[in-house]
C-alpha cells in the first residue's frame, strides 16, 4: 500500500495568525504553529493501517514538497507505516494539482508493485480534491473517492463512500486508488515505541531526475493553472455585543435586540 501525505500549515491555527505575503502569493508561516500532515492524509494512513492490522502488508508513505520537517513527515511512520519516500526539492514549489499528481504518479511507478494507493479527500490547505483522482487517471487505475470504510474481501476492495445524503457501497478490482474522508474516524495516536522506530528510520529521498521528471513539468513550471492573486477577504461585519447585568438579562436583551433588528419572521 502507498499513502500520499502532504505537509501543510496547521489548519487549526487561529485565523488571526493567518497572513499572506501579497507580492509572492504565499502564506507567511505563523509563529508558534508548526506545519502538520494534512488531517485527511492521516485518515488515509489510518485506513491503510487498519488493512495492515487485518491482513498484513507493507505501507509506504510518499510526501512531496520543499522544506519538509522530519518530525512532521515522519508522523505516519510513528503511527505504524513502514517506509517513507520523500520527494523534496525546490523545484516542487508552486505546483498545482496537475504537476503534483504528475510527480506523485511517477514516484508510484518507481516504487513499482502496489495494491492500493490512499490519499486524503483533499489537502486541508488548497482544498482542491484533485490529486487523488489525477494520480489514478495517469496510472490508468480505478479511483474511489470519499471513503469512510475500506475492506478487502477475496482480492476485491469494498468501499463505503460518504455522499451528501447517501452512503454508497462500491467494489473494485486491485490495484486501485482510494481517497479517504474524515468520517473514517480518528487516526490512531503515535506510540512511544513507534516514535523511537520512526526516529531511526531513514527516509528514501528522490529528486525530480530520479523519478524521470522533465524540468518543464515540475512544480510551478508544470502547472495547468495560474494564480492571479491570493488575498484575504475584507471582513465588513462589526459584531454588536449585547450586554446585561446577569446572564438572564443578556439572554432577554439578545432576543429584544434581534426583534428590533427584524431578524425574527413569525
Amino acid at each position: 500500500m502507498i499513502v500520499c501525505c502532504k505537509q501543510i500549515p496547521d489548519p487549526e491555527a487561529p485565523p488571526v495568525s493567518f497572513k499572506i505575503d501579497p507580492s509572492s502569493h504565499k502564506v507567511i508561516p505563523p509563529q508558534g504553529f508548526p506545519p502538520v500532515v494534512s488531517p485527511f492524509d492521516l485518515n488515509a494512513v489510518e485506513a491503510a493501517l487498519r488493512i495492515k492490522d487485518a491482513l498484513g502488508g507493507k505501507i509506504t508513505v510518499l510526501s512531496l514538497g520543499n522544506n519538509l520537517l522530519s518530525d512532521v513527515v515522519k508522523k505516519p511512520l510513528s503511527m505504524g507505516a513502514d517506509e517513507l519516500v520523500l520527494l523534496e526539492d525546490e523545484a516542487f514549489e508552486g505546483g498545482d494539482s496537475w504537476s503534483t499528481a504528475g510527480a506523485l504518479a511517477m514516484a508510484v511507478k518507481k516504487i513499482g508493485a502496489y495494491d492500493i494507493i490512499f490519499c486524503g479527500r483533499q489537502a486541508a490547505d488548497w482544498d482542491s480534491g484533485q490529486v487523488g483522482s489525477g494520480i489514478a487517471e495517469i496510472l490508468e487505475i480505478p479511483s474511489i473517492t470519499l471513503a469512510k470504510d475500506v475492506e478487502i474481501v477475496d482480492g476485491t476492495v469494498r468501499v463505503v463512500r460518504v455522499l451528501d445524503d447517501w452512503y454508497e457501497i462500491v467494489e473494485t478490482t486491485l490495484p486501485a486508488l482510494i481517497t479517504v474522508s474524515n468520517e473514517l474516524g480518528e487516526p490512531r495516536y503515535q506510540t512511544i515505541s513507534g516514535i523511537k522506530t520512526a526516529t531511526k528510520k531513514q527516509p528514501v529521498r528522490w529528486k525530480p531526475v530520479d523519478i524521470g521528471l522533465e524540468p518543464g513539468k515540475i512544480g510551478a513550471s508544470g502547472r495547468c493553472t495560474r494564480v492571479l492573486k491570493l488575498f484575504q477577504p475584507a471582513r465588513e461585519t462589526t459584531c454588536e455585543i449585547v450586554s446585561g447585568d446577569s446572564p438572564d438579562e443578556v439572554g432577554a436583551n439578545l432576543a429584544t435586540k434581534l426583534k428590533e433588528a427584524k431578524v425574527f419572521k413569525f
Partner: protein
Amino acid sequence: MDNYKGVMVFGETTDGKLSSITTDLLGGGRRLADQLQEELSCLLCGHKVGDFAREAIAYGANTVYVVEDAQLKDYQTDTYTPAVAGILKKILPRIVLFGQNDIGRDLAPRLAFRLQTGLSTDCIDLRIDPESKLLQQTRPVYGGNALATVVCQTLPQMATVRRKTMSSLVRDDARKGSIITFTVTFNFSAVRTKIVNRIKQETPGINLEDAHVIVSGGRGIGGLDGFKRLEEIAKLLRGAIGATRPPCENGWVPATVQIGLTGKVVTPELYIAIAISGASQHLAGCFGAKTIVAINRDPEANIFNVAHFGAVGDWKQILPSFIEKVKEFRAK
C-alpha cells in the same frame, strides 16, 4: 485554441426535474456566455433524461446535448468519465461548469486529467476577463482564511461551483433552443467499479439547505442533552439543527447536519451559532447566512469577527431567558 467555443453546464436531475444546482449554473453560465457572445449549452447524461432538455432551454440554454444509456442510470466514475470526455472532445466548449457536489467532486478532477486540462474546484465567483477572455475563477483556500483567483492556461477551462453562489433565471418556456442527441459506445471491460448498494442517511426535520433559520452547536454543547435544548429554539423559530464537526464525530447529532467545508454549505436568513469558536473550516459553510448570531463564553472567539450580534457568556445560562423572550414575542 480558436476551435473552443461556448459555455457548457453539466446537467443533473433530481425528483423529476432539473436539480437546483443545474438551473443555478445555467443562470451563471448564461451571463458568462453573453459576455463572450457565445452559446450556452447543457449536457444531460443518464437514463431517460431527454425529457428535461426543454426545461434546460427554458432556464437559458441555447443547445442541449442529450446522452441516454441504461449504463448511465447511476453515476459511476468509470462510465461517466469516458462518456463525458467523448462529448467534450466533439463539442469543444471553452468553459465547462459542474456543481461542487457528489458527482462534480468525483467526475470533474478525473475528467480534467483525462482531457489534460486545468480545473478549479469549489468556485464562488466566476468572471470573464474582458481582455484575455479567460475565465477568472475565485475560490476559498486555507479553510476560508483566504481567496485565490486562478485562471486555467489550457482548454477547456473547467470549474466546479459551490451551491447557491449563482442564481437561476426565471423559467421561460418561450425560449427557443435546439436539442441534439448523442449515443455512446461503452467498452464494458473498462468499467472496473460496481455499485453494490446505496443507503439514504436519514436526517429528521427540515432540510438544512432549505432552512431559513439554523441553530448550530459546537463542542461546548457537551452532548445529546445539550442539543435537545438547541432543538427547542430551532422548533420555536421553525428552523433546523446544525453542528460543527466534533458533535457529529461524537454522535450527538447525525453526520448529515455537519456544516462546513467538508459538510453542508448553508445560506439561511438567520444562523445562531452556540458554543462555536468559529474555526475557518466551519465558517466556510455558513458565511453566506444573512444574519449570524453568536453565543460564546470566550469574548476573543473568532466567531465574533463574523457575527452580526453576539452575547458573551455560558450558553446554558443565557438560553433560558432568551427562549422565554422569544416565546413572548411569538405569542403577540
